[in-house]
């Protein structure tokens, strides 16, 4: 039984390969505008991400088939359908969106730091501190939602500045500091939001108090659009706008020019008189603020109530942001799509029939995709190689008839050169 499935998969795979090849060869021979487009980096980036996703999905499907072949068709369908599995699809789409928004913001945080040559693995820590600041704003200041959001950004920024400061002035590697600050941040939040501090802890439910209405993000009519699903909020616009803003800062501004120069060549940046230390700290602050506001955009929807006793490991959001950033080829706009996709598959995994499959299958597939993201550079290089080889082959085919008398040609060449 398995073998027929494998054959099918094989044939699908080889078919796909051939098609991709045909696509390139055609493009090369026609030498049209399309061909030019096919060799641009943007297209290669896009294609390599798509291939990562496809391979990840295929491997995931194989796992599903191996675990329980008779029910696999249904399971595959529900993975692919993602949020559309919900009895009311609008609500399913809503649940994808509400999770994709913080993921996007975390990936923007990663991208921003990465362009300055920093690896912000501290996004989870900045995320939890962002959540803490948002809660404090909501429960103590009784602040309206926008103040809470700004507070969450400030919290994240603070948590980003600390490793930035250590790196700038003491040359301490930001990866090490920020990993430590991840845990410090988590336990700080768990202390504040848990029974130890007891200031926002509901002992009966073992979680935080319910957020006051004024602190909840406004839905701006999304609830009507999504048949009453009330957790998609203004955060959607905020995230998209921030993605565009990040892109503009990186590509159009003097500050972006400076931080990318720093990321590419620290010595040249210094030589050009750029203030490395200042830029580094500002970058970490912005990166942290993005991760912090991600938490605000998640918890201030009321979708999930934070539980200090249950949350004993770092939230996956910050780490998944790394995956979304790389799957989006470190492009702020690309990461909009990559974070939507990752969330889509995760949500789909939640709809699997748990009598046959454990619900972690969805996580497995998304982690496969994430894992394969590490290969996206390799895939990009392979694409370039295939393109070049096709080109060479095509030219060699055209050229062979004239070039056969190779032995005599040698002397001709000699004369020409002397």
């Amino acid at each position, binding site marked *: 039984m398995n073998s027929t499935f494998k054959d099918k998969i094989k044939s699908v795979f080889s078919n796909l390969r051939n098609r991709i090849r045909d696509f390139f060869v055609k493009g090369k021979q026609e030498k049209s505008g399309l061909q030019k487009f096919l060799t641009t980096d943007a297209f290669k980036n896009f294609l390599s991400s798509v291939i990562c996703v496809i391979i990840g999905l295929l491997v995931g499907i194989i796992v599903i088939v191996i675990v329980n072949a008779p029910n696999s068709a249904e399971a595959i369908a529900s993975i692919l359908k993602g949020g559309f599995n919900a009895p009311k699809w609008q609500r399913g789409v809503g649940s994808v969106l509400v999770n994709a928004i913080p993921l996007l913001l975390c990936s923007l945080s990663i991208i921003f730091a990465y362009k300055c040559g920093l690896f912000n693995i501290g996004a989870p820590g900045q995320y939890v501190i962002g959540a803490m600041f948002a809660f404090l704003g909501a429960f103590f200041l009784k602040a309206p939602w926008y103040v809470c959001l700004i507070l969450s950004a400030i919290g994240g920024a603070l948590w980003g500045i600390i490793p930035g400061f250590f790196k700038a002035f003491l040359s301490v590697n930001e990866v090490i500091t920020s990993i430590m600050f991840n845990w410090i941040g988590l336990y700080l939040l768990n202390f504040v939001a848990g029974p130890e501090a007891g200031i926002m802890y509901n002992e009966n439910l073992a979680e935080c108090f319910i957020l006051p209405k004024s602190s909840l993000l406004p839905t701006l009519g999304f609830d009507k659009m999504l048949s009453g699903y009330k957790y998609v909020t203004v955060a959607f616009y905020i995230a998209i706008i921030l993605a565009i803003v990040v892109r503009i800062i990186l590509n159009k501004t*003097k500050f972006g*020019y400076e931080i990318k120069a720093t990321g590419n060549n620290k010595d040249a940046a210094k*030589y050009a008189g750029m203030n490395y230390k200042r830029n580094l700290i500002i970058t970490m602050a912005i990166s942290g603020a993005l991760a912090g506001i991600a938490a605000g955009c998640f918890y201030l929807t009321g979708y999930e109530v934070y539980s200090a006793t249950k949350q004993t490991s770092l939230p996956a959001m910050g780490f998944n942001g790394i995956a979304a950033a790389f799957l989006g080829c470190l492009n702020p706009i690309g990461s909009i799509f990559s974070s939507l996709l990752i969330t889509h598959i995760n949500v789909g995994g939640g709809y699997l029939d748990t009598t046959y499959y454990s619900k972690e299958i969805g996580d497995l597939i998304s982690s496969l995709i994430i894992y394969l993201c590490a290969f996206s550079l390799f895939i990009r290089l392979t694409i370039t190689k295939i393109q070049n080889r096709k080109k060479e082959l095509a030219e060699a085919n055209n050229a062979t008839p004239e070039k056969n008398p190779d032995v005599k040609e040698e002397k001709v060449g000699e004369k*020409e*050169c*002397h």
Partner: protein
Amino acid sequence: MSDYVIEMINITKKFPGIVANDNITLQLKKGEIHALLGENGAGKSTLMSVLFGLYQPEEGYIKKDGKKVIINSPNDATALHIGMVHQHFKLVEIFTVLDNIILGAEPTKYGFIERKKGAERIKKLSEQYGLSVDLNAVVEDITVGMQQRVEILKMLYRDNDILIFDEPTAVLTPQEIDELMKIMKNLAAEGKSILFITHKLNEIMSVADRCTVLRKGKCIGTVNVADTTKEELSEMMVGRKVEFSVQKPEITPGEVVLEVKNVSVASKIHKGEAVKNVSFNVRQGEIVCIAGIDGNGQTEFIHALSGLDKVKSGEILLKGKNITHAPIRERSKDGMSHIPEDRQKHGLVLDYSLEDNLVLQKYWEPEFVNKGFLRRKNIRKYAEKLIEQYDVRSGQGPITICRSMSGGNQQKAIVAREIDKNPDLLIAVQPTRGLDVGAIEYIHKQIVSQRNSMKAVLLVSLELDEVMDLSDRILVMYEGEIVGELDPKTTTVQELGLYMAGAKRNVGENHE
């Protein structure tokens, strides 16, 4: 049978926007030293990369000992006993010399490295070819000359008999160059065939048997070195007559622009000082040159002067203003331009486009930035102006990624950027390192024209010819001190060499 060990027949290799090699034929005889001469970007490196399997040619083929071979990767090249010493050495800095040589071809027994066996073989080789190295020294501690010998031993250890030297003398001192020339002659005498990429005509005249000249990707011809002259070769290479010495009108220097008072700089390697108590000044309309053998404190001094590193003690005045501790940007605004020693490390952001690199010292000016946003149109216009004016050649103009440009054009871009800042003081550190005669002539003219327009120029150079040719005054630096101030008109190269080697001094404690 063929007389040739390697033949590259009608090689054509194209890159986007440029034909790097256009129908080039190169034939190497056994036991000869064959020079490959050409300007930067003429296609020498591309041709060698084709031979070494890094690129596949679109047309043409390669023959080894008369048989057609296909070289798809450096591994194939190694299997055919073709070895290459790259311009930038490929050594593991923290490994010992021995480990570097055997790396990738380690003699092993049950999976353990047999260092003794390797060492014995290397000793034999080094005696046979006269290559002295210290096998137990760590590579980062040894001189550049010895690093190069390590690279040569690496090739010999792998039984290579076709040796490619990619601009081997660019990083060497005059003494080390002489040494290398001897080694190359030895190797050829022992039956190795050598391909020698260079653009230094003196070296070709002294060691090469034949010479193939490339210009703009085309093969101009192959000549017997004995039958030709330096002038003829340079004309073949550049396509016109080249002036070897620079004409300088007499001018009386004006006011003092740069004043250095008792400057000391701490060393990064040892506890002492890399620069000790240096004082001098540079006036308008003169070129002051700091000469010396590499590693005698010139780099550290220039880093301190330009603000890349800290000054330990002493004072630096630029146009009377104390800039000893001023940030780099402020020095730049006050009229200091700096052509850095290492163009790839400091001079350029290699992954930036040419236009972005051309504004690297200016991007903050209102012409290029408005309320924090870059004014792309102005940047493009400015870049196009500089590219045209300074003849910077590249595949795609202003949007070319600098990494893909040839070394000479990278340097031209830096020179264009720094000179166009219209500085009061131009610091040029080894501005012609690794460049061909055409580019050198060009850059020398630019430097002299700065002097003629009454700018102050501080030149740091390891090339004696350049020092003698360009400067109005020579300061010799030895072990971090200025040991001599010489007038190029009344001094000889030999005398300069004595100062550089520390055998003579006329400034400082032992004033003569």
